[in-house]
């Protein structure tokens, strides 16, 4: 009798679990993988909100040829191995037709492997390691530029305006930071700038003064930093404390464009420039409206991360509308044929250099001027004149 009860319980539990897999009718399911908990949750939440906003708009406008677009947003917790099992679950249990999202290089890289193996179309919108589109994978498409191209607008600014002789590079020890620093190091050598110091650090340190002191001793013309928000603010605050005054401080996207950077670094954030992938003033249809709508709804300003997610959702909808059926090969064909305009700019997946299915997106330079993130480069889109040269000690109130 007791045994029977136990067996019944097991069977019941299994059927309960399996019943979750029953598909809802009248909708098309797309899996979105984002870190909504864990240390990267900040970025994941922004992208989730942008995805949900786009989903609502798309469904209000008729959905996917009459079917509802259903986004299954799954939490990767920012860990690659969790990301892999999440994707596996989306493919095998939820039977999604394609996958989107992908924040942080390492998680995206690891999950893209699963998608490639399962012939599952995956539209990456933020994960930026070059490897994601240079591994020869055919099922992986990327909306955002690879990390090696993040600094291309900065490059032209450097060669045309600042013309530095010496460069110091600081980066966090992550896939994004290490690769970005390596690439920038190469670029500097190519352009004839001398790299006097290149140093990685563990995320989450309190005291960056030892390394900043060394930077100060080398007296470089520019300091290039690839950091997430809190490290970015501490680096600038401590540079201020040490009176470290290069010609320019440059951030390599990520932390330096977030509103939190300004809030935490305070006066030390003034006139710092950063590479970025998007700005609301860019002449893309809907960019400004998206920015305003997001701000009104979530009461926070949105940077390139949100724009990428929002645009990705529209690309996904467009692809699914055009696809002959929801079979993976048909979706792939539709992805290949993508040629559309989004808030993030034109989107088209092509093969160039070592890259496969990579969208060519432009990059820009922004500068914190009077507490606002202004687009300063390239000149034709600029909202404010690029502030240079700068008397840092005066800016910092010494």
């Amino acid at each position, binding site marked *: 009798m007791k045994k029977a009860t136990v067996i019944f319980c097991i069977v019941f539990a299994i059927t309960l679990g399996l019943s979750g897999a029953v598909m809802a009718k009248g909708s098309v399911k797309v899996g979105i993988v984002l870190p909504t908990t864990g240390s990267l*949750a900040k970025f994941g939440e922004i992208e989730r909100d942008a995805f949900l906003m786009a989903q609502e708009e798309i469904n209000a406008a008729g959905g996917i040829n009459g079917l509802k677009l259903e986004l299954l947003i799954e939490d990767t917790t920012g860990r690659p191995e969790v990301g892999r099992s999440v994707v596996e679950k989306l493919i095998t249990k939820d039977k999604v037709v394609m996958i989107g999202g992908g924040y942080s290089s390492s998680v995206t890289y690891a999950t893209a492997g699963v998608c490639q193996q399962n012939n599952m179309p995956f539209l990456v919108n933020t994960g930026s390691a070059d490897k994601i589109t240079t591994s020869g994978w055919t099922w992986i498409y990327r909306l955002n530029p690879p990390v090696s191209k993040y600094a291309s607008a900065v490059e032209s600014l450097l060669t045309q305006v600042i013309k530095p002789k010496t460069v110091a590079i600081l980066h966090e020890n992550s896939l994004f930071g290490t690769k970005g620093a390596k690439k920038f190091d190469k670029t500097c050598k190519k352009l004839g700038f001398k790299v006097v110091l290149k140093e990685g650090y563990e995320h989450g340190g309190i005291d960056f003064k030892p*390394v900043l*002191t060394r930077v100060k001793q080398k007296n470089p013309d520019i300091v290039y930093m690839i950091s997430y928000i*809190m490290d970015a603010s501490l680096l600038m605050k401590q540079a201020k404390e040490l009176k470290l005054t290069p010609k320019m401080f440059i951030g390599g996207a990520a932390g330096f464009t977030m509103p939190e950077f300004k809030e*935490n670094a*305070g006066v030390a954030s003034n006139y710092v420039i950063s590479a970025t992938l998007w700005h609301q003033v860019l002449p893309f249809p809907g960019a400004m409206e998206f920015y305003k709508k997001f701000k009104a709804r979530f009461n926070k300003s949105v940077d390139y991360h949100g724009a990428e997610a929002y645009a990705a959702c529209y690309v996904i909808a467009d692809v699914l509308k055009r696809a002959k059926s929801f079979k993976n090969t048909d979706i792939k064909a539709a992805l290949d044929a993508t040629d559309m305009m989004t808030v993030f700019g034109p989107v088209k997946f092509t093969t160039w250099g070592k890259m496969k299915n990579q969208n060519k997106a432009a990059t820009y330079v922004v500068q914190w001027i009077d507490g606002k993130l202004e687009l300063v480069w390239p000149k034709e889109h600029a909202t404010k004149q690029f502030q240079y040269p700068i008397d840092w000690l005066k800016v910092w109130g010494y």
Partner: protein
Amino acid sequence: MDVFIQTIVSGILIGGIYSMIGIGMTLIMGVMGIINLAHGQLMMVAMYITFVMAHFFHVDPYLSLLVAMPALFLLGAFIQKTLLNPLIKVESILPENQVLMTVGIGMVLTEIARFIFSSDYKTVKTSYSSSAIFIGKISFNVPMCIAFGFALFFTALLFWFLLKTDLGRSIRATAQDSEAATLMGINSSRITVITFGIGSALVAAAGVLLMPIFYLFPDIGGAFTLKAFVITILGGLGSTVGAIVGGIVLGVAESLGATYIGMGYKEMVGFVIFVLVLIFLPGGLKRLTKI
């Protein structure tokens, strides 16, 4: 030369805060002989108290010491009384049950913080957060200097308490030989409760002092728990002077490592020292200084 001096100065200043974290740990380890794996998490709680005080009531972080320290004393005493002391009576195979219990407590504290405050980074901004005084070319961060001063003050206070008061003497007696102390009429379970409370209050002070300089998120504790171990082992169990010296040695070693070996290896310096001390100087600096 400036690089070297600046490195040493930064190391000593950060060492002051490390010492504060270490003192609480060394006291708990010395008296109860258990590793408190929730030490950093207790600090995190204190930091959130400071954050709430500053953010909602606009109280200066340093004034929050008056709230955070008593609050953490009570929390620490509560943990010891209701969760750790009862374990002594529970029969189990592993003697490390109390240690494993602190792992669970740490997880619960972290997750409760995440529930209330989310994973967002929080900071307390003050007008003096990144102000610095210059002596020659060397920069001294003001909040770090203040923290250093507080660290010295609290150590002196603790030292006086342990040497001159009855309660302090009872704590030292329990640390030396808890059975003998019990025979002498000391209520050792009460002593452990008080000690855990004092240890928690001290790490709370460290958290409050760190707040103007650093930032805060629920997972911040773990890294500091590890630092506290290194300091405790370096200084010797139960040695307050050892903890101060250990904290400063760790701060300076990390700074030197960051400057001359590489920023990426900074954390490793501490662990290497830790293992070296465990092997070559078991008992820590206490063995050299005898206090």
